[in-house]
């Protein structure tokens, strides 16, 4: 109940913000009866109505995970974001080994296995993409896809 009401409220607020930013869209001089604003605003309005509807008729609450699990998820997000940034400057193998080892550890907390998974996946996938599929991956630091 509460979760859905919050969700509905968030949707409604975001929808209003969306309508507001759609209203800022520049229109060109050229005649176009609908214009670039109307369709986004219609979408915003639709989302707003649906959001209100969810506030009024919410479903039951889901089982939200405990705090420690949420912490683990946040770590996973941080790892993935860092991985995204690291891929270009550090090449494929090192970031992949680190990121997949951490994820593996998060799923099944055994350090030895995680290290093995990291090493195996980074080298194995590199082989797969580079040699079997011919994608232009770069193993170690330098630009990717020349």
């Amino acid at each position, binding site marked *: 109940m509460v979760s859905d009401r919050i969700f509905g409220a968030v949707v409604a607020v975001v929808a209003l913000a969306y309508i507001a930013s759609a209203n800022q869209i520049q229109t060109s001089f050229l005649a176009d*009866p609908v214009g670039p604003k109307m369709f*986004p605003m219609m979408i915003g309005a639709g989302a707003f109505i649906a959001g209100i509807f969810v506030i009024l008729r919410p479903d039951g609450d889901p089982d939200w995970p405990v705090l420690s699990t949420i912490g683990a998820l946040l770590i996973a997000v941080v790892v993935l974001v860092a991985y995204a940034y690291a891929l270009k400057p550090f090449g494929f193998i090192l970031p992949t080994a680190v990121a997949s080892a951490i994820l593996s550890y998060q799923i099944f907390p055994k350090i030895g296995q995680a290290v093995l998974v990291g090493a195996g996946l980074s080298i194995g996938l590199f082989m797969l993409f580079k040699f079997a599929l011919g994608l232009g991956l770069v193993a170690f630091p330098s630009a990717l896809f020349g």
Partner: protein
Amino acid sequence: MDLLSNLATGFGIALSPYTLMLAVFGCFIGTIIGALPGLGPSNGVAILIPLTFSLGLDATSALVLMTAVYYGAMYGGRISSILLNIPGDEPALMTTLDGYPMAKAGRAGDALIISGFASFTGAFLSTVGLMLLAPLLARIAFQFGPAEYFALYILAFATLGGIASNNQAKAAIASCIGLGIAMIGVDNNSGMPRLTFGNMHLFDGIDFLVAIVGLFAITEVFSFIESHGKNTSIGITLDKLKVPWRDIWNTRWVQLRGSLVGFIAGILPGAGASLGSFLAYMSEKSIAGEKGGFGTGVAKGVAAPEAGNNAAAGGALVPMLTLGVPGSGTTAVLLALLMTLNITPGPTLFTDRPEVVWGLIASLLIANFVLLAMNVPMVKVFVRVLSVPAWVLLPGVTMISFVGIYSLSGSYFDLLLMVAFGVLGWVLRKLDVPTVPIILGILLGGHMEDSLRRAMVLSDGDWTYLFSSKIAIGLWAVAIAGFVAPLFLRKFLKKPQAVSD
């Protein structure tokens, strides 16, 4: 008789032990590429080009190899949908809805074989349709102007009401999220950037593949970390692998109808394979009704979308070959390939270059039969994926997704977006909001707006133009009578029951 001799010419060009070997190879590579999240037919073809070179292939062999990869990728998309709830590419989206529940119930092998059969039916029938009627069918595209396309998209969204069985408002929110995302980027009609906040990366909009891989693959990883592997398909003891003849026979009408719906959607350049699988699934769902159990893991639920999307893939070849209009992203790749072979598709292709057309058709048929023959042995290999421990499999899927998305544009920005979609997908999954409408919104939102605005340009803003042709009225009628009205009627019918509770 003409047809037979043409076909004979085609096979004469395309069939030899050597090309057959190439077809097997192409189907295998294609299936694997299709199954990897983020990598689709376009990557498959890109990978094949250097290969054709190093093998020193002539034009015909190249054609056979590339159609094999193309169809292989179309078949392969379903594999990760069923096994891991991660669509390999966008037409395989709908297959997750029933395929994954089947895998969770230990029926992954059945689901793969049934969907493989349905893929064959769809692809085969649409190739036959292409063969018999292509020049005639091409004329259908001339009947579809902006108003007709707009009505078609309305129909697609009207069917969404049935996707979330309990709360339609949530399906509506999900479609709005997708449509809202589709608006980002340079506006086609005014050339002005919209909702990009000055970010160059957003000028071309957000690629639907980023959204699919984020909402499915990355979300799956988060769910897994949360649940530590409870209630997933991984590690489930599988039933012994047998060909489920009964299910295949029982879904025969579903496969035929799905093929027809998909083929028609494929012929329309503005619709494409994803819409084909979507409409096939939704129409079967409404035919089966509540008792059909769609969404809980039923054979019909994997047969319909796979017949639909493979038929659409064949149907999309009709406007591509006869008009030079690629109906979907994947046919655009094939079009580019034909042009590299110095073949320019267009209205005269069938008469000017019959050997190309019939060679292509023969290649399609060859690829199709090869895939069917390879299907059962390959399924045995693929279901083993589920016995890989989760702590290896999920990091692996994540890394494959990253590489797949990275290969799209080579920018970290798409990767960040993908992670953001992953987080969004996890929250929405918790709240029981369906994510399929988001993808549909992203795929169709731009087209839908464009067709509305084109219609209004042509009619000087007269809204009745949207209902000005028989086709448009027909589509509106199906949308309202078939999908929107029942939604409200159901409520009316249910209310008395609620009181008696």
